[in-house]
C-alpha cells in the first residue's frame, strides 16, 4: 500500500484508551469525585451489608423500645445507633433498607422513563412528519395529566406495589424525556454525520441507536440523575398519602410519612432517613456533575 508518511500528525496525542476510560480518569482526579464516590460506596455497602452487621433482631417490632433516641443522646442505647421508630425498630437499619428500596424504585423508574422517553423522542424526531406530530401530541396529553391523579387512579385500581408505583412514575415521567430527546434529535438529524452514516449504508435503526443516541443521551442522562431524587420524592409523597409501598416494607416515603407525626417527641425518625437520603442523592449527583464536566472537557479536547 502506498504510504504517505510526510503528513504532519496533529497535536492530539494518540492515546490508546477508550473515551469512557479517559472521562473516568479525568473525573477521578477531582477531589469532590473521590469524596462523593467514597460516600456513595459506603452507603451502598452499608445498605447491602448493614443487615448482617447490625443485630437483625433490631428490625423486629418491640413496642417496649419505641422512640429510643440515637445513642449520642440521653436515653439512647445499643444496638440502636440512631434510635428506634414508633414500633421500636432500629432506625438505622430501617432507613438503610428503606433508602435502598426507595432508591431502587427511583433508579428503576428513571431508567425506564429515560429509555422509553428517549426512544420515543428519538424515533419521533428522526422520523418527523406524521409520526412526529402524533407522538408529540400524545406526549403533550400525557404531560398534562397531574401525577397525583394518575397515581390515585392506577394505584387505587391495582393495589400499590413496587411495580405499579414504578409504572405510575414512568408513565408520568417519560414525556419530558421524549420532548427533550426529540428536540435534540431534530438538531442532530440535520448534521452531516447522520448523512455520512446513511452513505455508508447504515439503516435508520442503526443511525438512531449507534449515532444519534450516543451523541444526545449523555447530557440528558446527567439530568436524569437529578430525576432519581424527584422520583424518590414522589414515592415518598405516595407513601405520605397512603398509596405508596405497603408497610411493613420500609421505604423512605413510608418511614418519613410515618415519622412526621413524631417530629416533636422523636424528630430523629424523620431527620435520620432524610439526612441519609440527602447524603446518598447529594453524592450521586455530585458524581454525575463531575462526570458531566469531565465528559465535556474530554470531548472539547481540553483534557
Amino acid at each position: 500500500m502506498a504510504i504517505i508518511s510526510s503528513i504532519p500528525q496533529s497535536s492530539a496525542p494518540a492515546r490508546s484508551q477508550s473515551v469512557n476510560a479517559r472521562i473516568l480518569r479525568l473525573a477521578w482526579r477531582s477531589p469532590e469525585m473521590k469524596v462523593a464516590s467514597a460516600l456513595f460506596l459506603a452507603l451502598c455497602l452499608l445498605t447491602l451489608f448493614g443487615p448482617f452487621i447490625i443485630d437483625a433482631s433490631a428490625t423486629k417490632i418491640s413496642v417496649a423500645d419505641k422512640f429510643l433516641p440515637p445513642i449520642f443522646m440521653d436515653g439512647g442505647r445499643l444496638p440502636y445507633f440512631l434510635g428506634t421508630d414508633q414500633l421500636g425498630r432500629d432506625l438505622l437499619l430501617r432507613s438503610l433498607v428503606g433508602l435502598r428500596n426507595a432508591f431502587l424504585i427511583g433508579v428503576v423508574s428513571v431508567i425506564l422513563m429515560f429509555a422509553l422517553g428517549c426512544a420515543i423522542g428519538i424515533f419521533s424526531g428522526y422520523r418527523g412528519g406524521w409520526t412526529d406530530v402524533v407522538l408529540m401530541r400524545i406526549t403533550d396529553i400525557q404531560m398534562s395529566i397531574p401525577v397525583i391523579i394518575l397515581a390515585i387512579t392506577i394505584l387505587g385500581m391495582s393495589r400499590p406495589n413496587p411495580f405499579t408505583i414504578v409504572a405510575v412514575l414512568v408513565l408520568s415521567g417519560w414525556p419530558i424525556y421524549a420532548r427533550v430527546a426529540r428536540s435534540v434529535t431534530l438538531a442532530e438529524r440535520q448534521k452531516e454525520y447522520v448523512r455520512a452514516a446513511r452513505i455508508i449504508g447504515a439503516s435508520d435503526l442503526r443511525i438512531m441507536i449507534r449515532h444519534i443516541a450516543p451523541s444526545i443521551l449523555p447530557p440528558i442522562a446527567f439530568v436524569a440523575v437529578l430525576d432519581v431524587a424527584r422520583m424518590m420524592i414522589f414515592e415518598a409523597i405516595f407513601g405520605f398519602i397512603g398509596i405508596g409501598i405497603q408497610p411493613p416494607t420500609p421505604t423512605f416515603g413510608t418511614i418519613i410519612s410515618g415519622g412526621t407525626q413524631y417530629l416533636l417527641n422523636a424528630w430523629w425518625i424523620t431527620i435520620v432517613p432524610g439526612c441519609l437520603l440527602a447524603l446518598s442523592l447529594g453524592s450521586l449527583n455530585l458524581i454525575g456533575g463531575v462526570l458531566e464536566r469531565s465528559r465535556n472537557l474530554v470531548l472539547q479536547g481540553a483534557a
Partner: protein
Amino acid sequence: ASGSLIFAAAGTVTSSWDPTSHTVAPQITAEGFLFGHLTKCPMSEANPGEILPDLATEWSVIDEHTLEYKLRQGVTFHDGKPFTAADVKATYEYASNPDRPASAWYPGRVDVEVVDDYTVRLNTKQYGYPAINFWYVSSFLPILSAADVANPDTLKQKPNGTGPFRYVETVGDQIKFAAFDKFHEGKPSIEEIVWAYVPDANTRVLGLLNGQYHLTERLEPEQYLSLHKEAGLKTDRSLSSENKYLHFRCNKPPFDDPRIRLAVCHAIDRAQVLAVVGEAGQASNCHVSPVKFGFTDVKDYPEYDPEKTQALLAEAGFPNGQGLPEIEYITSVGFYPKTREYGELITAMLQEQGFPIKLTTLEPAAWEEQLYRRADGQGPGHIIDVGWITGSPEPDLVLRPNYHSKFALINGVNDPEIDASLDKEHGATSTEERLKILQEETLPLIAGKAPSISLFSSVFLRAMSAKLDGVTFYPNGPIDLSKATLS
C-alpha cells in the same frame, strides 16, 4: 370578653346546616356551638346513663308510650324569636320523619303534644314502640325553630339555634361563630370562634405550637404527650363513644369458620396494640364503648393466647396456618390514629402464628370504598380495620348494623343465634331488663362468635392554649365553650 378563639378542626361541615340532613361527626361538633337540646348527656364512664337539664328543666315517664318535658322559659333563638313548645313539636316531628337522612339516629316517628307553651309530651303509641327510646336521644336532637322547619331553605343556609354561639359566615375552609348575647346561661366570654379546617394532624399541632391556633382536636398520642409537656399549652383526654374493630369477612373462607376468627383473636396481643396506640386508646373487653349503655367487661373475651390459636388452627385443619389462603388486612391511613402502626404490629403477630397475611393501607376514600360489603354480599380483603362512633349512649346503633344478619354491613355475618339475641334485647320494655340481656347474653355471644374483634375504645385527645379555661368535651366530639374563657 376575650376575643376570638381559633379552633383547628380535623373535619368540617357539609353543605347543609340542617342537622337532620347528615350523620357527620364534625358537623355535630359545630352544631354543638349553635343548638340547644332538651337535655344534656355527659356520657361519663362512671355514669353513662346520667341526664342533665338543658332546654327542658324536668322530664318524666307518663306511660310506656309517653314522655313529658317541662321547658325552660325566657330562652330565645339567635334570630330573636322566643323558644316555646311549638319549636319542640316542629323539630321532633321533622327530625324523626324517616325521610330525613339522619333519621337513622332516631328510634322512629313520634307525635308531640303541646300541653302548654312550656310543656310537651312525646307520644309513640301510634308507631308501636316504647317512648323510652327517646330518653337518650333528647340529649342529641338539636332544637330548631318552628319557623325554620317550615322553611327548609333557611334551615340549610343559616343555622338558627338557642346555643351559646351564632353562625356568622363561612369563608373558604373557615367558619366563624360569634357569642350569642341572649344565651340563656349568659353570654359566653369568648367573643368569636373561628373554625379552621386543618386536615393534617401534624399541621394542627405545629399551628398550635406557634400560637396560630388555640384549640385542636384529634391528636396523635405522641403529639398529645409532647404537647402535654409544652409550657403554654394544656391537653385534654377523654374517652369517646367509639370502639375500634377488626371485622372479619365472615362469608368467605377462611373466616366463614368461627374457629379461624377466634384463632386470629387469640393471636393478637392487645396489650401491645394499646402500647402502640398509647394515649389514644383505652383497653375494653366489649363490642361497645364504656360510655354506651350496656357496656360490661365481657367474661371470656378472647385474650392473647398463642397456644389457643395453634389449637384452633389445628382443629380447623390448618396446623401452624399451613394451607390457609393469603389473608389481606385492609386499613386506612390518616383517618384514625395509629392504624398503620398497629396494622404492622398485628400483621407481624399473625405472621408469627403462621397466618399468611399481607397488609394493605389505603387512603381514606379508597378505604371507605372497600369497607362495606357489596351487593353480592362480599367485600374485598379479609380483615378490615374500622371504628364505629355514634352520638348517643344507645348500643343498638353499633350492634344492629354490624352484627344483625339483616345488615352486617362490613363482616357479613349470618348467625341466627346472634340475630335472636339482638332482637330479644331490642324488644325489652324496661331499661333494667335490656341491660341484663345485653350484658349477660348478647355481648358475650358476639365475643364468642367473633364476627369481629373490638381492639380497644378510642380516647379523644385534644390540646389547647393554656389561656383557655372552662371547656367541656363530650365523648362524641362536641365541645362546650359557653363557659370557657380565653385570657
